[in-house]
């Protein structure tokens, strides 16, 4: 066998596997497109899925420090309490964004992301209360958009310090408001109010929700003023 023949033979052998590889790729691409079409409801099919979540941040009130040391430096603790609030706030921002604002979650009844904020025992309870803690399983069938608008959503913190001045437990009181437009053109004010207890669990990074008491007070509302633009 000459070298040329070997090369030709090799090329000939490669043509068949390439053809076999292309076919499954095409099939998978078609499958993905079909899946997106089925899952997306009224959402876009081609061009990258759902819209991004609208930008959202809670307004954070000054935190209250609760001291357990009789001779605590109140100013120092107050500053530490604000630091704790700064550490925790992104967790709560993300929790509410994922639970109420991110179309890729509420359109598809996919709220798995929110449970990462909870300690394991609390997460299992949170899963049982997903309808209260999120926009709900059927939100994708009901709503077109959810808009936090000019946020009137607020967080206020109370932080308990141990006698050494280390933050032990934080309670964050939440008032979250958004406006959801239904597919039939009516509007629902989404209101979530409650408290979350957070601790720094041994062996875990950051603050984790260990208990909560959350209430929903949704109600019918008028369309937002024309200047407000729905973000999702």
């Amino acid at each position, binding site marked *: 066998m000459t070298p040329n023949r070997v090369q030709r033979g090799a090329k000939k052998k490669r043509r068949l596997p390439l053809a076999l590889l292309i076919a499954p790729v095409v099939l998978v691409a078609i499958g993905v497109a079909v899946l997106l079409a089925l899952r997306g409801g009224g959402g876009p099919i081609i061009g990258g899925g759902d819209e991004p979540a609208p930008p959202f941040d809670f307004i954070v009130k000054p935190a209250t420090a609760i001291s*357990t040391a009789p001779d605590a430096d109140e100013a120092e603790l107050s500053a530490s309490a604000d630091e704790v609030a700064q550490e925790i706030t992104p967790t709560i921002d993300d929790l509410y964004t994922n639970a109420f604002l991110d179309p890729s979650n509420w359109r598809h009844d996919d709220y798995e992301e929110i449970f990462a904020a909870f300690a*394991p025992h*609390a997460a299992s*309870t949170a899963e049982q209360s997903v309808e209260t803690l999120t*926009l709900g399983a059927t*939100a994708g069938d009901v709503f077109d958009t959810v808009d936090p608008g000019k946020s009137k959503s607020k967080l206020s913190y109370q932080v*308990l310090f141990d006698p*050494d001045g280390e933050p032990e437990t934080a309670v964050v009181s939440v008032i979250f408001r958004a406006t959801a437009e239904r597919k039939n053109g009516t509007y629902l004010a989404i209101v979530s109010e409650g408290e979350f207890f957070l601790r720094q669990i041994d062996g875990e990074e950051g603050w984790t929700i260990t208990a909560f008491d959350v209430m*929903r007070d*949704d109600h019918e509302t008028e369309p937002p003023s024309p200047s407000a633009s729905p973000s999702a």
Partner: protein
Amino acid sequence: MSVLAARRRAALLVALVAAWIAGSALGATQPAGHASAAPLFQLEPAHAEYVPVLDGSKPIYVLVIGSDARPDQEVESQRADSLHILSINPAEHRASIVGIPRDSYVEIPGVGQNKIDAALFYGGPDLVVQTVEQLTGLKMDYWAMTGFASFEQMVDDVDGLVVDVPFAMSDDASRAFFDPGVQRLDGDNALAFARNRHDLPAGDFGRSENQGRLMVAALAQLKKEFNKDPARLLIWVASFVRNGTTTLAMDEVLDLAFTGTAINANKVENVVFPGGTGMVGGLSVVTLNQETLDAISKDLADDGLLKKANVPPSPNEPLLEG
């Protein structure tokens, strides 16, 4: 449709109590790091050799010791002016309070027969625990001790206790002057209410019941405030920690406080071991009714709760009926 539900609530704090407790108790190994030369209030595990089970699977027994130490005295070197077993059934959100008359003439381990209030003087809280355990057969999980000053301060820190004063009181010795009815008592008045025995027909028996009444009031208030604003729990815990000392981790103190928020105060049985009074060697003593003592102790042992059949008559019955 579920998303249209106007008002719904995930009231999971109470439901989470057991889980919260179980979760954090595992990590509750660091002492709070707060010590005081003359502790005003202490809460400690009753035994060093085992960890109390706080997951709701068994009752929790707390021996509450009121020392007659004045502000300038060490609580441990005085007598136990009041003794109560607080038994909590976390799973059922219920509790029982059993007062032990301070003059109860009992066997104090290593000391011999004596009034039970002397156990604190002879061996501190540990000996009081041993004595009560020997008397009742119940194994205590914690003991908590307070003196006059810290009791007052704690009550003031939570803005007073709302107490249903069951009958009029007028006692110069304790400065207890109350009309019957629901009223908010500040620390000074709560202490007076707890100390009054001179104008009670059954003396210390009736006083012990009234002290239990304060505990029930505290539990009711804690629950009420917690339900209204869960963050109030932090104020209560802070008040306790600020006015006392403990080797418990803050997590565990919080867990116990959470446990307290779950108790339905309306269903707390508040009783006192009955007995008769007499003299032994010049000492005025109480001989406990052994049959009732055994029945109550046995009843508490299984689930921490007292059956109606084992609830003795109130020592304040003549006043309550009046």
